[in-house]
C-alpha cells in the first residue's frame, strides 16, 4: 500500500507538473506567472522560488508586499536612520512671484512649475531650524513635488525628513508586533485655523512640539511611539491676501504587541492640552480675529477656540483616531 502511494505520488509529479506548465504556457498565463518573479530584487529573500505551486495562487506580490511592510515598520522605529516614511508633509499653493528674487524676470509660464519646484528645497532648509529645535535632531529634504490644477494654481508638496529627538521606546518585540497609527488633529475638527502669513512659522513650530508631546504621552502609556507624519496644509485666502487657512494633523505610530493594548489607548485621555493652548496663544499673538472661525452648532463637540486661531482641542471622545490610510 505504501509502495503504491509513493508510486502514485511520483506519477502525479511526472504527469501533472509539466501539464500545469504547458497549460499556463498555452493559455498565455505564462507571462503573468513569470513576470512578477522577474521583477523581484535578485538579492531579496523573497526571490527564492515558491516551494509549492500552491503558493503561486496566493500571489507573489502579496509576499513582497508583506516584506515591504516589515522593513517600513523597522525603518520608522529606527530613530537614528533617515527614512522617507517619517516626514513632515507640508502643502502650499505657490505662485511664481512667491519664489522670484527682487527684480528677477519672469521665466515664462512654461517654466513656472520648474522654478517653484527648484526653489522648494531652499524653503525646506529655512524651516529646518524650527524642526530640529525640539522634535528632531536632524532635518533634510525628503521629497518635493508640484502639481498644477486646472485653474493653473501650483500646489507644492514638500516632505521634510527628520530624525526624532525622542527615543522610540520599547521596540524589542518589533518583529512580531503590529504597527498601529493614531491620528491627532492639530487644528479644529470642523474648520481650519486662520492666520496671517507672518505667523505661519510660529504656528508650524507649535504643531511640531504638540505632535512630539502627544507622542511622549502615548509612549508612556503603550511603551512606544514615533511621530510618523505631520501633515500641514496652508492655503492663502483668495478674498483676503496675506491671510492663510491652515489645517494640520499628526500621525503617531506605536507597536502593538498584545491585543489588549488597543483598549488601553481608547480609554486614555490626553493631558496637558491646556498648556499647549497657552503656548500657542503666546506664540501667535493674535494672527487673525476670532470671529472668522465659524461657530459650531454642536455644543458638546464645540472646540476651544483660541485668540489667533492656533490649535484646538476636539472635546468629547478620544483624540486618538485610527487612520485607514495616509
Amino acid at each position, binding site marked *: 500500500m505504501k509502495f*503504491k*502511494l509513493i*508510486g*502514485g*505520488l511520483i*506519477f*502525479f509529479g511526472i*504527469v*501533472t507538473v509539466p*501539464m*500545469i506548465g*504547458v*497549460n499556463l*504556457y*498555452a*493559455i*498565455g498565463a505564462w507571462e503573468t506567472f513569470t513576470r512578477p518573479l522577474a521583477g523581484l530584487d535578485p538579492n531579496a529573500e523573497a526571490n527564492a522560488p515558491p516551494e509549492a505551486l500552491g503558493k503561486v495562487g496566493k500571489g507573489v506580490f502579496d509576499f513582497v508586499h508583506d516584506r515591504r511592510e516589515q522593513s517600513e515598520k523597522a525603518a520608522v522605529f529606527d530613530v537614528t536612520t*533617515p527614512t*522617507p516614511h517619517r516626514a513632515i508633509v507640508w502643502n502650499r499653493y505657490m505662485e511664481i512671484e512667491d519664489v522670484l*528674487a527682487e527684480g528677477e524676470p519672469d*521665466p*515664462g509660464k*512654461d*517654466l513656472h*512649475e*520648474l*522654478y517653484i*519646484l*527648484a*526653489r522648494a*528645497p*531652499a524653503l*525646506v*532648509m529655512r524651516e*529646518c*531650524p524650527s524642526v*530640529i529645535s525640539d522634535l*528632531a*535632531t*536632524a*532635518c*533634510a*529634504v*525628503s*521629497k*518635493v*513635488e*508640484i502639481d498644477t490644477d486646472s485653474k493653473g494654481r501650483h500646489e507644492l508638496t514638500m516632505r521634510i*525628513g527628520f530624525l526624532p*529627538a525622542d527615543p522610540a521606546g520599547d521596540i524589542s518585540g518589533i518583529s512580531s508586533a503590529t504597527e498601529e497609527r493614531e491620528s491627532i488633529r492639530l487644528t479644529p475638527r470642523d474648520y481650519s485655523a486662520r492666520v496671517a502669513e507672518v505667523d505661519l512659522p510660529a504656528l508650524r513650530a507649535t504643531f511640531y512640539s504638540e505632535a512630539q508631546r502627544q507622542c511622549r504621552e502615548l509612549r508612556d502609556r503603550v511603551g512606544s511611539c514615533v511621530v510618523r507624519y505631520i501633515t500641514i496644509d496652508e492655503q492663502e485666502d483668495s478674498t483676503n491676501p496675506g491671510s492663510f487657512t491652515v489645517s494640520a494633523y499628526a500621525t503617531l505610530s506605536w507597536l502593538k504587541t498584545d491585543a489588549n493594548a488597543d483598549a488601553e489607548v481608547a480609554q486614555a485621555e490626553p493631558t496637558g492640552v491646556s498648556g499647549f493652548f497657552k503656548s500657542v496663544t503666546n506664540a501667535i499673538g493674535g494672527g487673525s480675529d476670532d470671529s472668522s472661525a465659524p461657530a459650531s452648532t454642536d455644543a458638546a463637540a464645540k472646540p476651544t477656540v483660541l485668540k489667533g486661531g492656533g490649535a484646538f482641542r476636539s472635546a468629547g471622545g478620544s483624540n486618538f483616531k485610527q487612520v485607514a490610510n495616509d
Partner: protein
Amino acid sequence: MNPTKLFLTFAVLLGVMFFLSSMKEKVAPGAETVTTAAEGNGLLGGLFGTAKLTTVGAQEETETDPARLRRAEFYGWKAKHPGLAVQDDLIVGLSEAVSGYPGIRVPQLPANHRILKSDPTCSPAKPQPGDRIANVSIGQADLDSGLQVFTVSEMAKDTRRWLEGTLRKSLWTDESDLVGDHAVPMVDVILTDASAPQYVVLQHHRGRVLWNIVPAKGVTISHVVMIGNGASINPAPGNYDIQHLATGGDCVPRVAREPRPTWDMYSRVGVRLEEYEPRARAEFAAYDAWFRRNFGQGAETGVVGFDTTQHVLVGPIPSRPEERVAYRPVTGATVLVQEADYVFTASEPERSAFLIEHQTEIARNAAGGDLAMLFPEPLYREAAK
C-alpha cells in the same frame, strides 16, 4: 477510490484542460467576423501563439492573421505592427502589399527637417476635376520614428521629473534621465491607386504623427493636406503642394470618426453608452459637415485607418508578390515638421549631450543660480548649535 486512481483521474482532467485550452486558441480567429487573406499560421501557430512568443523576429514581420493584428478598443480598432489598414475597415499583413520593409528594431531617423507652418486660411485647396480623394483617418500612431519633437513645456516637465526623482533619494537617477523621449510615431501611407491623381487627406485625432508617403510606381499625387495638430511628413517626390490645418481651435473641428459596431464601446460590459455615444456622434457630425463642405464627400467615404495605426494602404492590394510596393523609409530623408520649440533629427547620443547641457542650465537658473541649492545637505542639531 485508491490514491493512484485519484491521481490518474487528476492527470486525465488536466490533459483534457490542456486540450480544451489549445482548442480555444484555434477557434478564436474563426469567430472573428472580418476575415481576409491567408490565415496561414497553421495548427502550431494556433496552439502556441506564434506572434505572442516571438519578439521582433522575422516571423512577426510576416504575421498576416487579422485576429492577431488588431483588437477592438473603446474608440475603434487598435492595430499592431505589421498590420496594414486597408479599405472597408479591414486589415492585412504589411508584407502582402510592401516589399523591403526594414523592420521596427531601429527607429527610422530622418537626416534633416524643414518647418511647415499651419495654413492660416484654414481651408484646404479645392480638389481638381478628376482627382480622387485618398482618405486616411486615424486616432493616433504608436510606432516610434527617430524624429524627436517637443515644446518648452514638455522639456520643463522632463527636468522637473528628474529633479523630483533625484530628490526622492529612494529612486536612483542620473543626469541622462534629464533627457525625455519625444519620438514622433510614424504611419506609412502606401498609395497604389494609379487610375487617378491622388488628393491625399491625412487626418489624425491626437498626439503627434509623422506621415511617411510610399507611392507605388505610376501613382501621381496632386495635393496633400494634413489635418490634425503635431503632424509631420516625409513627402514623396512630385510636383504638388502640402498644406497643414490645425484642429480644435477656430480653424477646423477636431478630427473624428463615425462610431462603428466593432468599437469596444458597444460590447464592453458595464459601459453607460449614453455617456459616450452621443458625444462621439456629435463630434463626428461636426467634423463630417466640415469635410463635406471642403471635399464634396463624407468624411467616411472610402476612409482607411484605425484608432491606432502603423501602416495604411489606399488603393488595391497588389495581386502578385512581385507587384508589391517597394518601401521608402524615412531614414535619411528631409521631413517637414510643424513649428515646435525643439526638433531633433540627430542621433540619440548627440541629442542627449545637447539636452543634458541645456536642461542643466535651465535647472540652474530655476534653482536661483546654484545647482547645489537643489540638493541641500541635511541640517543636524549639533551642527546648528
